[in-house]
């Protein structure tokens, strides 16, 4: 791994905050970062690794910040990037938004966090739940007695501390699936997959022991057995609290949950799903005069379900003007700064079909610039429904004190990266 130093820069390349972990790379090297970045960007050779002499900069960009790790070794690149993303994750949990202002407003906490997250170039405590127990944002308040080491730093159950109390014991379970689809201009589905996750919001006292029951079909898929009938899930990740050995032996998901919000598991299914909202589009461009757009949207899901907040975003040429729309339902709006027509349908029942027509004028003098062919993108949410058919059968909650607790389950399917290419 071995990152020598970590820098947080603003968009102009000015160092906002930095931490020298190893001292084997001159801290002034960072001055070369921005010029290098600009130079590579101009030449079209931009790359997540930039090098100046023997110093390598590995960088990511987040809102109006650059996070840069320097190293002069042949470091493990994927670990360094993961660490930078971990930084983003931790900072975001602390400050809600990670951006220049929040770094400047909270630089004391940032220094403290940078101190705990890494030592001598090696990641140390990176779990934000644990960090939050002994690095608090009320740093500006004076507390002399505080700052005991939380038991979690050394505890066996590192993700939950003891002595948590709630008046009302509840667990909220969200099953969320996002659909990624790429459809070619000729209407064939190029790729599609489902990215799912089970999220928990735990408000339980003490050290509860939870057991989550899923339907068999999903369980078979999870363990990769019975390959014939079920789809195979790839890339299944459990939160570290889940006892994996238990899962492997008898397929029960049992765990002591972290307090508050957490992601219990995530998975990806690479399968040919029928696009839930199918779009057919005819975009006719008459040079120098007008563009005519006809978009047909069809709900390809069960009649009982309803998709909410559907947004169909259709690209239009950047020099288009005088928009006119006609829709069979919902309303269409022209967003000139993004060169889009956004057609919004508040509620879209399954099996239904809707139509939108748009008409734009084009200037008689054509631009020289080449324009790309952005795809049509669709956003939607379908509650009470999952594409994979995953279902929570039960959630058992056992705690020493024997309190009654209620689990609440919610299902939702939403659009992820949902793209349909166009001809124009």
């Amino acid at each position, binding site marked *: 791994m071995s990152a020598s130093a970590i820098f947080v820069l603003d968009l102009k390349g000015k160092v906002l905050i930095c931490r020298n972990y190893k001292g084997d790379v001159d801290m002034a090297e960072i001055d070369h970062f921005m010029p290098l970045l600009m130079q590579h960007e101009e030449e079209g050779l931009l790359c997540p690794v930039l090098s100046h002499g023997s110093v390598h900069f590995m960088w990511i960009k987040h809102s109006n910040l650059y996070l840069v790790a320097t190293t002069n070794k042949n470091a*493990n690149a994927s*670990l360094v990037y993961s660490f930078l993303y971990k930084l983003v994750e931790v900072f975001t949990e602390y400050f809600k938004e990670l951006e220049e202002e929040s770094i400047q407003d909270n630089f*004391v906490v940032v220094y403290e966090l940078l101190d705990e997250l890494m030592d001598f170039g*090696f990641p140390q405590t990176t779990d934000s739940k644990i960090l939050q127990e002994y690095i608090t944002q009320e740093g500006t308040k004076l507390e002399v007695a505080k700052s005991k080491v939380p038991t979690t730093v050394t505890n066996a159950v590192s993700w939950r501390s003891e002595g948590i109390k709630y008046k009302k014991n509840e667990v909220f379970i969200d099953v969320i699936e996002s659909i990624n689809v*790429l459809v070619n201009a000729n209407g064939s589905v190029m790729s599609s997959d489902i990215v799912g996750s089970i999220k928990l919001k735990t408000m339980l006292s003490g050290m509860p022991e939870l057991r989550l029951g899923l339907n068999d079909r999903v369980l078979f898929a999870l363990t990769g057995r019975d390959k014939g009938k079920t789809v195979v899930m790839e890339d299944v990740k459990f939160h570290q609290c889940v006892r994996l050995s238990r899962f492997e032996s008898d397929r029960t998901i049992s765990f002591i949950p972290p307090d508050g919000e957490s992601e219990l598991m995530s998975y990806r299914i690479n399968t040919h799903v029928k696009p839930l909202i199918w779009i057919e589009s005819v975009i006719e461009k008459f040079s120098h005069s007008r563009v005519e757009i006809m978009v047909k949207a069809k709900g390809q899901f069960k009649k009982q379900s309803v998709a909410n907040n559907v947004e169909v975003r259709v690209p239009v040429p950047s020099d288009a003007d005088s928009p006119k729309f006609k829709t069979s339902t919902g309303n269409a709006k022209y967003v000139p700064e993004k060169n889009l027509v956004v057609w919004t349908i508040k509620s879209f029942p399954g099996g239904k079909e809707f139509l939108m027509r748009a008409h734009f004028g084009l200037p008689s003098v054509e631009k020289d610039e080449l324009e790309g062919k952005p795809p049509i993108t669709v956003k939607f949410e379908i509650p009470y429904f999952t594409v994979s058919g995953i279902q929570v059968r039960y959630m058992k909650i056992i705690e020493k004190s024997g309190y009654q607790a209620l689990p609440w389950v919610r299902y939702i399917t939403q659009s992820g990266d949902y793209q349909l290419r166009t001809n124009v």
Partner: protein
Amino acid sequence: MPYLGGEDTVRELRRALSNPNVQSDQLRYRNTILKVIRAMSQGVDVSGLFSDMVKACATVDIVQKKLVYVFLCSYAALNPELSLLVINTLRKDCQDPNPMVRSLALRNMTNLRLPSLMEYVEQPLTAGLRDRAACVRRVAVLGWAKLHNLQPNSEIDAAVVNELYSLLRDPDPVVMVNCLRALEEILKEEGGIAINKPITHHLLNRLKESDVWGQCEVLRILQRYRPQSEDELFDILSLLDASLVSPHPQVMAATLSLFLSLCSGLPAVSLAALERVRGPLLAACGSVSRELRFTALCHIQLLLRSLPGLMGAHYKRFFCGYAEPAYIKQRKMQVLVELVNDDNVTMLLDELKGYCTDVNTDTAQAAISAIGRIGRSYSDRCLEILTGLLALKQEHITSAVVQTMRDLVWVCPQCSDTVCLALEGCEETLQDSQGRQALLWLLGVYGEQVSSAPYTLEVFIDGVRSEVSLGVKMELLTTTMRLFLCRPAETQDMLGRLLHYCIEEEPDMCVRDQALLYYRLLHCGIEETQKVLQGRRSDPSLGVLIGRPSEPISQWACSFNTLEPLRQGTVETDSTISASRCTDASADVPASSIAAPLSLSLSPALSPEEFERLWLQRQVLHSEQEQIQFPAIPHCSPQSLQAAMQLVNIQTLAFTPPHTLPWRVYLYTHTQHAGDSPHITLILGELLYTGEEELKVTLKQQPRDDKALKGFLSILTTVLHTLVTQLVWFIAR
């Protein structure tokens, strides 16, 4: 607060820090310190406040302590004497009942990075190793690594090393992993921590306890372990199987790396492991983070070097999204080119065709050259697409298409008819020098088939006065010469004008010399000129191989899961581009005319092992292939060959006995320019005779130096020539 310049700020802060009223009010004191740190972060030089800040660290307020330590660690190097004052407070803090304070003090003690303070630090560090709080032990363990890093030459205390080894059994997994890291650093000279069987098994058993970072560290260090028996090896492998398909791509990659190093002697097992990680690797390619996606793609490129068919069925996973950054798109296209087969070629080309009109010109050009690469195996389909793209009349597209076509006909001369048809009219759209150079080259080589060639050239020659690109001028000279040879009537007049301009008026010496060279060549008569300009070209199938042979895994295994694969691709493409330019521009110039005075030397000597290692290392060396017609060479005795080579300071390292087929000789030398600065390059060579007319010469060079290579080749040719004439003479006798 009013705006204050740097100096004023410092003065103001000093006054506040030394004000007894501020010092007695904790809240105000801390706020002042906060201002100091803020000024420091903003780049104001606050090092002058060092002594005031030293006083501020004696406090019970932990946050204030942390802030002061941040300050002290940043400026300690500038104030080594004053830093001594801090040590006392730090050492006192190491006795604090609160483990947080203890670990904080220990960490910052070692972060001061002052060799003069070493003697004060060692004792608290030793105590820290035995602290009952894990968070103090974590810091103490890494503290020893920092200490050693500060004074790498100092004696290593064996007791500390032993203690660190025993802490590998610490109940806290982070302490365990930190011990590994510290021992790696401390024992760097001895090759890192000693990994024996009990340690290996201990680490493997506790692997699951660590977080992702820890697991990766353990897996990386285990790469050094060599199992004592095959049974043990397979036990380890089956234990690691779950990690191999771990959902964390970092753990997966680290495990694969370990697999490859453990199974270096069992290629079948390595291949099976690669098959097994296919799923997780593809998943990593779909990662949300673009940097991780990029990393995964780069590593897939490595795997494909050994297993080209690994991802063939999953080519759709490498299709580009509209909003993906250019660097990912380009890598994906490079992967797609590798994956092409009879089943997917139609879909794949369709997709690539879509990228050719990308708004980003670099992406568009990369897509076009990707199609050109596929054209080496599916030339008809690709040429159809490429010709179609010309109709768009877009400047950057046309340029890329013409360059791609030039590179394609070099490998597949059978495409020349289609290419020539497509070329008509291109010159109007072409603007950049690269594209025009490519067009000129094509016109020169296939001038007979392009009816409008002389007219196109005429436009170029008329505009030569305002031409800025050196490359275009050089190419123009060569092209006009070539066209003159096949269509003299139409070209003679303009060739005259061009030569006259280049010799009399051209300011650039390179162009002038080339023009003079051609002019004198023409004086030697048309036959001589033809011999030089239309002479043999090196066999294209040798230079750029179509189906690259798959490499053994060991070639890239050591760079797997590091930074190297991310940087490789860009460097590689650069060198191939420049290589193709060089061969084009100088292909026609007789070697002897440009050979600068070159001296060869045998020192430093190269051992056969070293030679073999370098020879197999592809990326480091620049390689070139050439053919020489000396069929008689393999009949001469090894002794005479060796003697002849040694006369000119070329060392032969190994050869097959005479009269065997294929007959090979390996040799090496160092070149040095007589005039230039001491610029030495190493040249490795292989002579290969397979029974045909020609002798194949493969040369590899480090670092790259085309001039030296040309010079060396001419020397080699002369030696071989002399040998052959002697041989013929000998046989005749």
